[in-house]
């Protein structure tokens, strides 16, 4: 336990602030097997990439108990976003079938680049296998694989291993088989990402079909040599041309880190992105942006939760100002009968340092109809939108500054932000006050002008052709 904790701390330290601007690569890893219950349900560390020791610790129990045939599918580029972007468009039908029919499956959304690169060696070490047999293009012709069932005492009476070496003795070699399948199709100018993924999926499916026809139990892993290059922003579809709101594809430019997603696996339910996130305690500022977004992120989202009426995104930093720091974004959603639609709002931001009582801040006006998120160019204290809540002795110690914040806690689809309502309107508050006051003044001016211009001399008794009026001298 203590060793694991130190390994985790060491892994976090290794993932800690690197060279300014450097982004450590992270790759997804899919693992599935024909054998059941190799990896019981477990919570993976959220929001950060697994290091090589952690990956080894994760894979070891299942590989030890699982089938002796292990395939490692490696393609040139792969990112988690490929599954969210292209999965719904039929780029991975055979992979989806394999995962659906597998006895056990494990999805690791982020593995550190170094750990992914060392995956063949890691598997070789865990299995005690000889160097992996490379199968370019997935060619399995002429290969005889170990049909050893997992859990059998000894595979000595079973046909054993790979046979390309004519001097090997298949009857006395019960070693596990590690096959490295290089998926051949690469993204290029002629072949887009989706087509390359789809063709590689076909190769993967062919290999698995051969294994299934031979009734060979196996464990398969899918990863890549390097992360995919950033994609251009996908078209933001909010239901037609009617809605072209204030949203933009944040986190998808080449220089912008992707938004925080929770849960990190599968379809995220909460998205958060900011260009800059910093806190100040007692006059001491701390920029949390590199710890929150991008390759050097060390934030843990494990304390977050979601329900149809409340979304809570908890950012846990291991050490800020010498103690663990939690920043909580609380979003709520409710149906308003007069409006006839559900509204969602960012209700509160909480800051908790160590064991101290939380400093809470209320956000004013961060509400929008539920399908929309909320964006604000500048949110912080002191400011008109972020108000400290009692106990004031806690909340007044802290300062928060978030620039270009965009958050969406409900109706997240496709893993990208939907439309967003901006905190800034066309006119500011001062502009509206000036317009109203100016309007009143203009109205008064027009009224006065109308009165003056409507003045007429009293000519009721005026007869131009009559005799002049006598003016008595006595009065």
């Amino acid at each position, binding site marked *: 336990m203590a060793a694991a904790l130190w390994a985790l701390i060491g892994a976090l330290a290794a993932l800690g602030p690197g060279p300014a601007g450097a982004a450590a690569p992270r790759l997804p890893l899919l693992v599935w097997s024909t054998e059941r219950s190799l990896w019981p349900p477990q919570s993976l560390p959220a929001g950060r990439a697994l290091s090589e020791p952690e990956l080894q610790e994760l894979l070891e129990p299942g590989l030890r108990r699982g089938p002796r045939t292990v395939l490692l599918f490696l393609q040139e580029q792969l990112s988690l976003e490929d599954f969210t972007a292209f999965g719904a468009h039929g780029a991975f039908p055979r992979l989806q079938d394999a995962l659906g029919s597998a006895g056990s499956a494990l999805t690791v959304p982020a593995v550190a680049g170094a750990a992914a690169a060392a995956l063949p060696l890691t598997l070789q070490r865990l299995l005690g296998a000889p160097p992996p047999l490379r199968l370019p293009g997935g060619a399995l012709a002429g290969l005889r694989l170990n049909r050893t069932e997992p859990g059998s005492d000894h595979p000595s009476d079973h046909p054993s291993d790979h046979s390309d070496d004519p001097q090997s003795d298949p009857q006395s070699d019960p070693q596990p088989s590690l096959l490295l399948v290089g998926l051949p199709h690469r993204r290029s100018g002629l072949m887009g990402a989706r087509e390359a993924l789809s063709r590689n999926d076909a190769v993967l499916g062919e290999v698995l079909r051969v294994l299934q026809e031979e009734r060979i139990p196996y464990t398969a892993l899918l990863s890549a040599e390097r992360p995919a290059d950033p994609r251009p922003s996908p078209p933001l579809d909010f239901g037609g041309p*009617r809605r072209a709101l204030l949203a933009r594809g944040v986190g998808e430019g080449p220089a912008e880190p992707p938004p925080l997603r929770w849960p990190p696996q599968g379809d995220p339910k909460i998205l958060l992105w900011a260009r800059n996130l910093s806190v100040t305690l007692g006059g001491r500022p701390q920029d949390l942006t590199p710890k929150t977004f991008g390759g050097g992120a060390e934030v843990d989202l494990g304390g977050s939760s979601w329900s149809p009426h409340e979304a809570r995104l908890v950012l846990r930093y291991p050490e800020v100002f010498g103690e663990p720091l939690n920043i909580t974004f609380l979003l709520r959603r409710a149906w308003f009968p007069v409006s006839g639609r559900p509204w969602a709002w960012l209700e509160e931001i909480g800051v908790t340092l160590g064991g101290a009582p939380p400093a809470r801040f209320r956000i004013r006006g961060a509400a929008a109809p539920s399908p929309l998120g909320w964006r604000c160019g500048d949110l912080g204290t002191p400011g008109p939108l972020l108000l400290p809540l009692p106990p004031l002795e806690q909340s007044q110690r802290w300062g928060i500054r978030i620039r270009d914040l965009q958050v969406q806690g409900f109706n997240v689809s496709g893993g990208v932000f939907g439309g967003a*309502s901006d905190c800034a309107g066309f006119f500011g508050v001062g502009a509206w*006050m000036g317009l109203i006051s100016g309007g009143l003044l203009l109205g008064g001016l*027009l009224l006065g002008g109308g009165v003056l211009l409507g*003045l007429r001399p*009293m000519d009721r008794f005026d007869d131009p052709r009559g005799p002049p009026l006598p003016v008595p001298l006595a009065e």
Partner: protein
Amino acid sequence: MTGLALLYSGLGLAFWTTLLGVGICYTIFDLGFRFDVAWFLTETSPYHVVQPGHWLAISLSVVGAAWGIYITGSSIIGGGVKAPRIKTKNLVSIIFCEAVAIYGIIMAIPFNGVTPEEIGARNYHAGFSMFGAGLTVVYAISSVGVCVGIVGSGAALADAQNASLFVKILIVEIFGSAIGLFGVIVAILQVPAS
């Protein structure tokens, strides 16, 4: 169409066209929720409506009184040509009109010295009730000023014809002035409540 009518109709057309265009854009882009009167009322400073209440109270009450004086004065001057005896007696009507303006000054005194710090940033009740008090005075006094003026004009002309009519018409003027006082009383009640 005269120049003034052209100006007013042009301004009105521009205003309503702008409003219509903005409303259509908000509707077709599904941004109707951004039209938020509650946001305006709660975000703007309450103090920004206190001062308009203040100057509306004094200015439009004086406008009403001045209008009354203009009506009455021109009648007194006109009627005084044929019946010079009415000049002095009908100055009472002028005084009644001027008293109406004093009502506006009476209302301006409670507004005097009110600062944003006194009201506070979120004291909507204070701000809007003071604005309401100002509007109460505006509507009451401006119309009463015109009323007293028209009645005073009638009194002057009737007095020129028949001296015995003056006192009776003066009673009508008194009632007209009294109803303006009702508005002032209500406005005074509104101000301390804030």
